[in-house]
């Protein structure tokens, strides 16, 4: 796999795993409008994942036949959904990262990434608006919703740091103009997230714990169950077409 492919796969894995998580909400959302919205976001992420995985190899072989250590998504996207507050807090953190990422990648020197990002940036902007609106409503809603969304945020917050880690792969791609430096994305993310949390009357969590490992295939316990569920049918019928 070339460095660009390895990087493309990271981004595709983020989208696929988060799309899978969001799709677990099907028929369980707090309102019918949210059933539509959550599935819509899941579908966008799944679509982006398919474009990215498809640029690396066979999308189904990559999605259904890779074992845990071969997945390179960030840990944040594989965390369990928790309640609606936690799901929206996680979505805020992810979308606030994806918007500037896709915006930067839209002018990548890599044509595949640039093409995918051009479409994904519009979708991620909607995801960010949607998650922000909910985090604000929940944070500034009732005492119960405030407490719940704050707890959800506190739970997912430490995992956000991994999104902005750098390593030799990222550094080499930054140098070639293929992607943006995490150090450039981080302040944009911080500004967005802090603005939303302030409006939501929520406290920006402080954490010295920075769980990591997703980009090198070291995942959380929850991830094994996600893969088991997602892959079992495909794996039970080797070589079958669907």
């Amino acid at each position, binding site marked *: 796999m070339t460095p660009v492919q390895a990087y493309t796969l990271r981004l595709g894995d983020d989208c696929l795993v988060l799309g*899978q998580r969001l799709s677990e909400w099907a*028929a369980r959302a*707090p309102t*019918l409008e949210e*059933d539509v919205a959550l*599935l819509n976001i*899941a579908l966008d992420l799944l679509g982006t994942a398919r474009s990215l995985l498809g640029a690396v190899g066979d999308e189904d072989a990559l999605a259904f036949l890779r074992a845990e250590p071969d997945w390179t998504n960030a840990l944040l996207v594989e965390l369990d959904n928790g309640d*609606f507050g936690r799901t929206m807090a996680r979505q805020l953190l992810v979308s606030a990262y994806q918007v500037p990422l896709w915006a930067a990648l839209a002018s990548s020197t890599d044509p595949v990434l640039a093409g995918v990002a051009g479409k994904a940036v519009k979708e991620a902007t909607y995801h960010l608006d949607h998650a922000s609106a909910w985090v604000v409503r929940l944070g*500034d809603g009732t005492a119960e919703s405030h407490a719940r969304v704050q707890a959800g945020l506190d739970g997912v917050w430490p995992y956000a740091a991994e999104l902005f880690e750098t390593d030799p792969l990222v550094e080499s791609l930054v140098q070639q103009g293929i992607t943006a430096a995490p150090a450039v994305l981080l302040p944009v993310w911080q500004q967005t997230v802090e603005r939303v949390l302030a409006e939501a009357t929520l406290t920006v969590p402080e954490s010295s714990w920075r769980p990591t490992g997703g980009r090198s295939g070291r995942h959380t316990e929850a991830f094994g169950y996600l893969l088991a569920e997602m892959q079992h049918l495909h794996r039970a*019928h080797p070589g079958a077409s669907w």
Partner: protein
Amino acid sequence: MDFQQVIDTDGRIEPRDQMPDAYRQTLVRQIAQHAHSEIIGMQPEGNWITRAPSLRRKAILVAKVQDEAGHGLYLYGAAETLGVDRAELLDLLHAGRQKYSTIFNYPTTSWADVAAIGWLVDGAAIMNQVPLTRCSYGPYARAMTRICKEESFHQRQGFEAMTVLSRGTAAQQQMAQDALDRWWWPALMMFGPPDAASPNSAQSMAWGIKRFGNDELRQRFVDATVPQAEFLGLTVPDPALSWDGEHHRSGEIDWTEFAEVMKGNGPCNRQRLEFRQQAHADGAWVREAAQAYASKHRPVA
């Protein structure tokens, strides 16, 4: 024009028009039941989203379940034009006081069930619903026009998925046949009891809500579907099925099974309702928060 004249000239009744109470009540019951069916129907198919065997099928299924939520929204919206609100109708559903289609009380135990539901259940829904696009009540008719376009898309996707399975490995073919075996009769029951045993049908026909009898619609479905099963190389689980030169005639439907499922004794009645009640209860704090936020931030007039 008064109500009867509109009906007699095949016109449309709109929300502000005068209408008999019984007409309004019949429509509320029917549209609510239809809306409930859309949202309960998300469960059996949603059941396979996380396990879909390819990313393409996963995307198709997510989009379909999303469509069904959208259908629920259109239909609750149509019901609201008659002076009831969605929250009230959902409470009636959760309390078991309003019904939804019996078909969703059967389990989806294999992937082929997703394909079979698209092919047969969406297929039967289209037979039932296309005539409703000409229903005398305007908002319902218009909702059905939008919905039917998407249902026919679902039906084609289901049939296509079924085609792949029935041309696939031995295990896939077996899965497809097993799904047809389990879904065929419940799909026929979706058209409701025979006309002779359907007391409200005549009044609904007179009001232009219903355009065709249950038996006629069921026959159309059988005629359309039997050749499709043949094309797939699958066997319709009805030894009495015969061709009379004009129609494919099915054997006797087991109406005691239908009555049991109606009564709440289908395999999944309790599960489907409890799932809905749980989702609704789990979401209560979110809906309350949205309301509290909206009233805090209501723009000052």
